[in-house]
């Protein structure tokens, strides 16, 4: 029961936020951004924390999802029943293709290769002249739900994001608790032993990679809708690094940590960029310090004390 307390409080807080002083347009925009990035970070946490696979190209899956919205939008298709499955399938397919190759390696090679594939997606997006190229693409309209422009309403959009984030969280948590997740964790600790008991970690890891990709695609759809604009910078490798930072900042041991990490990241970015134009000069050292000294992450701080 106790491991549900922090996530429950977190989700309740997000649900109550619009009525607790955060109902203004700008606050809602920040919250939506938090939840969307948090969703992508939860997917990444499944990969990094669960399977021990450090992907430095996760932003590419968001980009594939967002660009699927763009391509459909340019062809006049904006209905959610088409947009969502297509975008998620596109991101999952991208993850399947790149994951099948990347997972042949491990450790530092895996990091470099996911980074390289992410960069490939970035340059591909930049060269899509029909969809704005480097300058990006402004959507004609947000995705329509059941023929209505539900997502145009900020409050409705807030709860759609929250609902999907909750579903994503529950899904990933269930996946990690199932046999699938146990194999992933076992392979993370010792792949050799997993093989020795007759299981090949490869298909499990590939499935985890594809799941994280599909979640990234979903987050990409929401991200495109939140800004009504998509640019190659969504896929930049810095964004992948930031997502990884959210996961670590929140703490590797838990999935809700990723959401906490996203929240902390968005607030920090917001606060520092108000302070100075060169906020990255403060943010970079903070990142370094948090890696060096803050090992358990935010979720570690909030976690109930382990009895020894």
């Amino acid at each position, binding site marked *: 029961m106790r491991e549900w307390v922090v996530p429950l409080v977190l989700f309740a807080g997000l649900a109550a936020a619009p009525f607790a002083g955060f109902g203004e347009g700008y606050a809602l925009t920040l919250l939506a951004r938090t939840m969307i990035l948090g969703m992508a970070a939860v997917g990444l946490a499944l990969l990094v924390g669960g399977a021990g696979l*450090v992907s430095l190209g996760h932003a590419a899956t968001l980009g594939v999802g967002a660009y699927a919205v763009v391509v459909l939008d340019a062809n006049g298709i904006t209905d959610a029943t088409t947009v969502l499955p297509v975008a998620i399938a596109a991101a999952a397919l991208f993850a399947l293709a790149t994951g099948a190759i990347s997972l042949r390696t491990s450790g530092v090679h895996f990091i470099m290769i996911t980074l*390289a594939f992410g960069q490939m997606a970035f340059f591909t997006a930049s060269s899509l002249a029909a969809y704005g190229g480097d300058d990006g693409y402004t959507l004609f309209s947000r995705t329509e739900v059941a023929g209505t422009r539900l997502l145009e309403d900020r409050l409705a959009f807030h709860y759609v994001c929250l609902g999907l984030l909750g579903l994503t969280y529950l899904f990933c948590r269930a996946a990690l608790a199932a046999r699938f997740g146990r194999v992933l964790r076992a392979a993370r600790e010792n792949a050799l032993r997993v093989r020795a008991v007759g299981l090949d970690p490869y298909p499990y890891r590939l499935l985890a990679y594809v799941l994280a990709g599909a979640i990234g695609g979903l987050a990409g759809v929401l991200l495109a809708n939140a800004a009504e604009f998509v640019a190659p910078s969504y896929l930049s490798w810095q964004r992948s690094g930031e997502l990884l930072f959210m996961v*670590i900042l929140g703490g590797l041991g838990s999935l809700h940590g990723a959401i906490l990490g996203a929240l902390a990241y968005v607030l920090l970015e917001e606060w520092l960029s108000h302070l100075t134009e060169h906020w*990255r*000069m403060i943010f970079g050292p903070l990142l*370094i310090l948090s890696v060096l000294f803050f090992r358990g992450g935010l979720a570690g701080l909030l976690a109930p004390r382990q009895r020894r």
Partner: protein
Amino acid sequence: MSPELLLVQALNGLQFGILLFLVAAGLTLVFGVMDFINLAHGVQYMLGAYFGASLAAATGSFWLGLLLALPAALLAGLVLEFLVFRHLYDRDHLAQVLATFGVILFLNEGVKLVWGAAPLQMPIPALLEGGVALMPGLQYPIYRLGIIGAGLATALLLWFLVDRTRAGMLVRAGATNPEMVSALGVDIRRLFTLVFGFGAMLAGFAGVMAAPILSVEPGMGDTPLILAFVVIVIGGIGPIRGAFVAALLVGLIDTLGRAAMPDLMRLFLAPSPARQAGAAIASMLVYILMAAFLAFRPAGLFPVRTG
């Protein structure tokens, strides 16, 4: 594409490959010896370019700028090693990735604060100005040939240092079994620092040489860094020889692909979509190459024999 243009593009590719080799060599040495993944290696290349450009402007001489930029790049590398990287050798790759990512954020923004966001220019030295006639009616800039020459000389020097000197022997031994080298009485930490500074200087050297032909701007190290990763994946971690061949391969394929792909696509498509599709495919070529290598030669071009 005419044969003249092909020759020019091949030389450009060679020159690009040489620069990539200088970046990748430091990266692979550092990784090989310390099992340390350093994303900030690209900003060391950028710092080299900034040091070179501003020192050349201050002294009024390209050569003095180059000469002073090398120790400056070395110093910057050593300072980073002392402040940040040293505390990460015992940590996992994830921590190394994030902390060095923090260094990138800091330094990319830092150069903006110090030198401004506008690109700097570095003049080509008078000695290497102008072109040389490769064929009747075909001029090629001497400076680019100079880069190729300097890079080849550096590669030779590097091979000599790693393969023929005592320090190089320790580096190779350290890459294979650091505990054993340490047990034999070698100060492995000092060796790490040495290799690190040397790698930073190589990247800085590449940055200075690239400065006159590229624009010196924040973030200029990101693309070479990622391509250097591709080079290391193709060439295999550790051996300098693998990095050299792979860097030239990546440089040539990337440059020739960008030049030739739109023309190739025109065989199948109308001019306008051909240009777009060509550009898209050209930017993916090196990554496709990398994927192919992973599929067929996962250990790289020259796998290290173990056991």
